[in-house]
Structures are given as C-alpha cells and as structure tokens.
C-alpha cells in the first residue's frame, strides 16, 4: 500500500530547484530572499532544539522527548503563515510550531521534564495545551473556530495532527462539524508515514487527503518537506477561512526521521534504506540548495544560523536544568476553578502528613523518614 507522492504539490524539488505551479505560485510570490533565509534559520534552530532535547533526555534531564526531526518545513512553513490572533491546537510533536508562536524554550521542556502537563499559558501565544489523546484537538479547533464566527472575527483555528490520528473518530467528527458549520478551521495533517511502528498504509488505503472532500471539505496534498509549498497551502487555507469559505484539509507528506519518542526503537520495525531515501528529501537540505542556487547561502548566513542554533540550544539546556522541582502540595492546585471541599480536605490531610516528618526530626535536622532508613540500614530499629 505505497503512498504515491506523485500527485502532491511541490514548488521546490529535493535538489532545491524552484518549479512553477500556476495555482500555488501567487501565494508565495512575495517571499523575499531574506524571508527564505529566516525560514532556514527557523528550521535549523528547531532541529537543534530536537538534538539538544534528545541529548538532555539521554542524560536524564528530561523524561521523554518526541522529536520532529524531518518535519521542520511542515511545521515552520505553516506556523509562520499564521497571525497572532489565530489559534493552534496541536499534538505533542509540534514544538516547531510552539517555537514560531513564541513559546519560551523553558516552557517547552517543562512538560517533558515532568514538571507540568502543559508548559505555557495558551492565551499568551495562541496555542492550546498540546493534546496527548490522539486526534482530540481537531474537535477543539473546530469548536474554537465556531466561536470565532460567533464573535464576528476572521481569526482561524488550526488543528495539527498526524496520519495515525486520521483513524480516530474524533477527526472524522470534527470534519463533519466543520463542514456543517462552515467553521474557519484548517486541518493540518502531517503524514510522517509512521504512527509509532504502524505504517500509514495501515491507517489509509488511499491518500489521506482524499477523505476530506467526502465530508465536503476541500483538500490540498503537498510535499511537506517543501517549505514554500507548505506556506502556500497554508495561506490558501487561511484565506478561504478568513473570507467565510470554511475549512480546508492539508495533507503535508513528510517523514518522521527520528523515533516516535526517545522511548522508541525504530530499528525494530523500519528499514534503514527507507530513512536513507528520505534523507535525500530532507527539508533543510532542500532549502540550503535553493538558497545556494539564489546565491544566498553565504558564509554569513551559515555563521549566523549556527550562532542562533547554539544560542537556542544553550537556552534550552539552561532552562531545563535550572527548572526547580514543583512543590509537593501543588498537586492539589487548579483541580477546580472554584474552591472544592474534597480537594481542600485532602490537601490539608497530606500537608499534615508531610509536616509530621519535619516534627519528628531531631538535632541532626534530618526528617524522621531518613533517620529510620539509616537506622534500619544499620540494623537498628526506629
């Protein structure tokens, strides 16, 4: 069940050659050399974030990290097309989207270090708390878009999800609602070919982009490793949504070059040859080649980009390691928006319990639980 990519829109070939495309070209005609260089810098920076975060995980500073290696163009190209008043609803892998929305790098690692479940205030940057439940966010984005219509504004909601998610019922239900209510929502599917160990052919026996028209939603199938195609498609969808034309489905064909997460081992189910094949289509390499052909891939650009990546990596590392452990009693915070008798009763109970160890400590200043462990280890009793 090979995923034929022949029919996807591509403006830049893997060799970095700009191809004409009558329908898409006008949407990126304004992109300057400087803007291309900036997009390049974005992609290099987020790839470096991935590398750094993976290293931090291996060093025990992060519990887990889901890399987006290989998907930089799909995320940067789309996220950079958005306005600040748009709102994105993502999965756990859209850290490049978070980067574009202006998320503090410390707030990105906060989740993966285990300090919090959502790293940022969604209203600061127009990005919802990432969804771990696959596909759930497509409904949230649709509802948000319905709210934008009710408010009479032309803001757009974007739902990011993967190929695996398209099998979940919520995604189909979201498309039903989006079509019925003509919601200004973009369904941005990064088909990265794999849902952990399951190939996309298991999720879809024909191109994923073919589904949306069945719901009455226009679909665009693009080369997700081609940042210009991604940007053009996103702009087309944004324009449609803003002008009352309703939802669009974008299937960005890309590849998950890394593991599902740092806990995964793709060598157990993936062919090394396939990875090599996709390395030739690498989104960053492709843009380098395009920039080079335009005479823009200068030493200055390379140096500036490396400096940016180094700075981002350092900021991420420092932010991660400096994160203070959360306070124990904070487990009881924010369960409800209003005062809750059950939660407060249990908070009091647990606070007393914790304090009881402090009370029993003696002149050594050690809490009783450590003393008893020491005593037991020495063969004594408490």
């Amino acid at each position, binding site marked *: 069940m090979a995923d034929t990519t022949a029919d996807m829109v591509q403006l830049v070939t893997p060799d970095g050659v700009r191809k004409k495309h009558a329908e898409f070209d006008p949407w990126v005609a304004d992109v300057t050399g400087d803007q291309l260089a900036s997009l390049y810098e974005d992609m290099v920076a987020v790839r470096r974030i991935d590398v750094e975060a993976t290293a931090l995980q291996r060093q025990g500073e992060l519990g887990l990290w889901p890399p987006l290696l290989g998907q930089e163009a799909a995320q940067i190209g789309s996220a950079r097309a958005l306005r600040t008043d748009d709102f994105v609803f993502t999965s756990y892998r859209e850290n490049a989207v978070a980067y574009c929305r202006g998320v503090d790098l410390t707030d990105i690692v906060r989740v993966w270090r285990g300090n919090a479940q959502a790293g940022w205030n969604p209203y600061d940057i127009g990005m919802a708390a990432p969804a771990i439940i696959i596909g759930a966010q497509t*409904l949230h984005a649709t*509802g948000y878009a319905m709210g934008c219509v009710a408010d009479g504004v032309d803001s757009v909601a974007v739902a990011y999800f993967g190929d695996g998610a398209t099998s979940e019922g*919520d995604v189909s239900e979201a498309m039903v609602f989006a079509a019925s209510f003509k919601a200004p929502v973009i369904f941005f599917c990064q088909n990265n070919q794999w849902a952990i160990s399951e190939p996309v052919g298991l999720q879809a026996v024909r191109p994923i982009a073919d589904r949306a028209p069945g719901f009455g939603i226009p679909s665009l199938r693009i080369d997700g490793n081609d940042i210009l195609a991604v940007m053009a498609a996103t702009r087309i969808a944004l324009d449609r949504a803003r002008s009352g034309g309703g939802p669009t489905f974008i299937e960005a064909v890309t590849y998950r070059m890394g593991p599902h997460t740092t806990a995964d081992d793709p060598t157990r189910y993936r062919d090394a040859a396939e990875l090599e094949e996709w390395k030739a289509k690498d989104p960053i390499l492709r843009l380098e080649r395009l920039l080079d052909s335009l005479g823009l891939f200068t030493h200055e650009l390379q140096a500036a980009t490396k400096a940016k990546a180094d700075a981002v990596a350092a900021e991420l590392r420092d932010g991660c390691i400096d994160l203070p452990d959360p306070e124990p009693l904070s487990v009881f915070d924010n*369960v409800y928006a209003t005062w809750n008798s059950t939660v407060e009763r249990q908070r009091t109970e647990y606070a007393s319990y914790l304090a009881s160890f402090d009370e029993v400590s003696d002149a050594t200043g050690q809490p009783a639980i450590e003393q008893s462990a020491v005593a037991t280890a020495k063969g004594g009793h408490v």
Partner: protein
Amino acid sequence: MTTMTLAKAINAGLRQAMQDDPKVVLLGEDIGALGGVFRVSDGLQAEFGAKRVIDTPLAESAIIGTAVGLAYRGYRPVCEIQFDGFIYPGFDQIVSQVAKLHYRTQGNVTMPITIRVPFGGGIGAAEHHSESPEAYFAHTSGLRVIAVSNPQDAYSLLRQAIASDDPVLYFEPKRRYHVRGEVTEELGQSMENAVIVTPGTDVTLLAYGPLVSTARDAALAAADEGISIEVIDLRSLAPIDYAVVEASVRKTGRLVVTHEAAQSGGVGGEIIAGVVERCFNYLEAAPVRVTGWDIPYPPAKLENHHLPDLDRMLDGVDRVMGR
C-alpha cells in the same frame, strides 16, 4: 412563584441563563427546531436564534469536543446528551479534556461547560435509555456532578451550574420531567449542599435524582408504623455534602442509601465509606444500600424488579433497624 413541570423548570433556567449571559450557547441533538426530545429546550431557538441554540450533527464526542473549543474561546457552552446511555462516545472528551484542562494549564484555561443528561429508568424504554452513569463522573476529579429531584432545584441548580466556572455534569431525572412543583427565580442553597427534605429521627435515608420522591413516599409510609425517617436529597454527588449527612447520621445512627445505579462501585458505596470514616462510633448498625442490581439495565417488562421502589426502601429501613 409559578407552578411548572420539572422539564419546564429546566427550560426556564436555560432561558434565564441565556438572557443573563450572551456567552451561554446550547449544543445538542434535536434541541433547536424540535425543542428537544423531551421538549426541554422548547422555544429557545426561536427566541435566541440558531447560533445560540445549535442543532448538532449526531456525534456526542464532537458535541463535547467542540464545546471545549468554544470554552477556549470564552464561551459558556451547555451541552445536552440526549439520553444517559449515549454519553459514552463523549466519555473521553469529558474525562480526558473537560475535566483536566483547568488542572493541566495551571488554571489558565477554564472549562465552564454544563453537560445536561436525562438519566434513570422507570419509563418503559428501549435499551440505553434508562442508564445511571453518574458514578463514572463522580470518580473523575475536575468534574462537579449534580442530580436534581424537583422543579425548583432543576431551575436553581441549573442556573448555578451554568454560572459556575467548573465543568458540571447535570443529571435530570427523566421519569420526573412531568412532575409539577413551585418554582421561584431564587438560586437557593449552593449546588454543593445536600438538603433535608423530610426531617426525622430514627433512620437517615439518602437519595438523589428520581428516587428522592420515592424516598419521601417511603418516609410517609413508615410514619404510619411509627418510624421517623429523615430523607436527604444529596443533590451534589461530587463533592458530597458530608456536613449535612454527618449531622443526620450522628442523630439517627442508621443510614440507608438508595440509587438506581448498580450497587458495586456506585455513589452509595462512596457515601457509606465517607460516613463510616466520620461517624463510625455513632452507627447503631451497618449502613444499608438499596440499589439497582449489578446487572445491565433490564428489559422494560422487568425494570421494576431492578429499580428500588418504596417497598425495597422500607425493607432496607427494616434491615438497618434490625427488624
């Protein structure tokens, strides 16, 4: 003060909530043009328009999930699940999203969503139309769970639920929709409070939703035999108002808890555990549960053998009194 049915009281509560706050929107199947299969939302779409009273496609997960998105956008959605047994497709959005979003975003995002659910049996219905799923939600932190028993509470607690910034599962006793009662526009006691509906001294009989009126009838019948039953309408299943319950059990020393839902893992077990923790030395006898059996809801011809009725409640009273 007007006399109206429980269904009409909900209608009045919805209307008042929508008049008070333009951010209140209703979503559900058949709630607009039809006015709801129980006519609970009758006339609301005509008054407030199709953008605020939204007939949704047939998809419970989407009803709840789009409400999450609307809440992100600052709206106050009131979702109707047409029948109790249809809530399960929406279960994931309720417990994984609605219940948790305030917590996981450190309070930055609120989910002021009210989910209205006609529940309970005794109406001779087809399968999946007579369920009592409240325990699943009472066990889910982040949700408040309310079960109303009478027209006044149906109005007042609904208005409180909608106004609350917490998500609320609001269970309506569908077999009592036609029951008439006095309704004022007052909000009355907090929706967290249990209420003593019949004072008594010998036994505490705790009920909620459709069984409150059955419990009151049981108290009247018992009075003829010289037994004084104190009937409590729990109203809030999460959190539970132990202050009222505890005060009653300290007085009577005997507790009977009744609900239509199956016994095992039900709200009754939770209450009894809580009462035993608080009032062990005041108990004269082990508390008694009078509940549905641990069976799927049976066919209509058999439902009366499953649902607690007045006689089974009095039997429970006899047992707790050692008679």
